């Protein structure tokens, strides 16, 4: 990405910070705008990368099942376990997002 794009993106992230600084003495819930941005971007990244990872896992599993139909049961079991483990990584981000958005953090 070009440097101007990166700088524009970082500047957009700084807008809530400037708005909050203008408030008299950090108001109640200073975390809220940043929490929303963080939860949204984090969950989007996690879901996308989890999709990529699970796609690779299923692709290899299906390839292996096509090569050796006799072992299809065991391969399917390993695929299910692998998918659940990859999925849990995206779930940690979901839990963190819910934590950021719905817990009343002390100022």
């Amino acid at each position, binding site marked *: 990405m070009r440097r101007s794009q990166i700088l524009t993106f970082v500047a957009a992230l700084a807008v809530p910070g400037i708005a909050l600084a203008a408030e008299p003495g950090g108001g109640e819930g200073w975390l809220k705008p940043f929490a929303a941005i963080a939860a949204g971007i984090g969950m989007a990244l996690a879901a996308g990368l989890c999709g990529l990872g699970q796609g690779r896992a299923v692709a290899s599993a299906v390839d292996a099942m096509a090569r050796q139909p006799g072992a299809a049961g065991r391969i399917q*079991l390993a695929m*299910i*376990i692998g998918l*659940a483990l990859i*999925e*849990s990584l995206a*779930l*940690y981000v*979901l*839990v963190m997002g*819910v934590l950021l958005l*719905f817990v009343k953090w002390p100022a």
Partner: protein
Amino acid sequence: MGALEHPPILSLPGIPEHVTYMWVAMAILIAIAFAASWRVELVPRGAQNFMELVLEQHLTLIDDVIGPAGRPYLPLLATLGLFILVANLLGLVPGLVAPTANVNTTAACALIVFVTYHAIGIRTQGARAYARHFMGPIPWLAPLMIPIEVFTHLARPLSLSLRLFGNMTGGHILLAVFFFLMGFDGMLGWALRGSLGGIVLGGPAALLMAAFTVGFVYPLKLLVAFLQAFIFVILAAIYIALAIEAAEPHH
């Protein structure tokens, strides 16, 4: 998020709802167990047949993952599996709450697995041999292996509890958002308010969302309920297998 809820049907005063519904799940399981073992017959029929099938599937799983040495641990794994399954399924009924949608319940199950697999390892191999397998295959690699092993072991109950909790709560939030969007505060309310745009757009949108919820979201939640119980049991079996198998010489 509280505004998206409706209070659960059964609520005892002073007792948190995840505890109440854990008791409901226990009552259901005890009732099924009584029905299955009331009169035990050689050729099983009905509830006994069903429960024998379920337990045989668990035994097959244990044989696959741990081997015959794992058969004494069938009560633990089957209890965990059946309890988590019933608890997950309770969350599908509107008006009931899944106890596993609360991190306390899932953390309790995960802690049970954690303490148990260490106890199994220590009892099978002896405390010194079990502690020695923390140091890895080569002795002078120990200062590197020990922190990695400790971190891995600590991550296991964390991941077990958060995986189950996140799946259940995520499905719950999804369903709550759908009901909000298509209910009397959303599409349906828009249609019922009588404006032309409401009837033309809101009505079909509400119908479409209802069809989507019943046809896709509910089956997905059902699948996730079964899958997460299965994953919990199989991961617990894998941890027990790892705790036992270090007794064999590495090859």
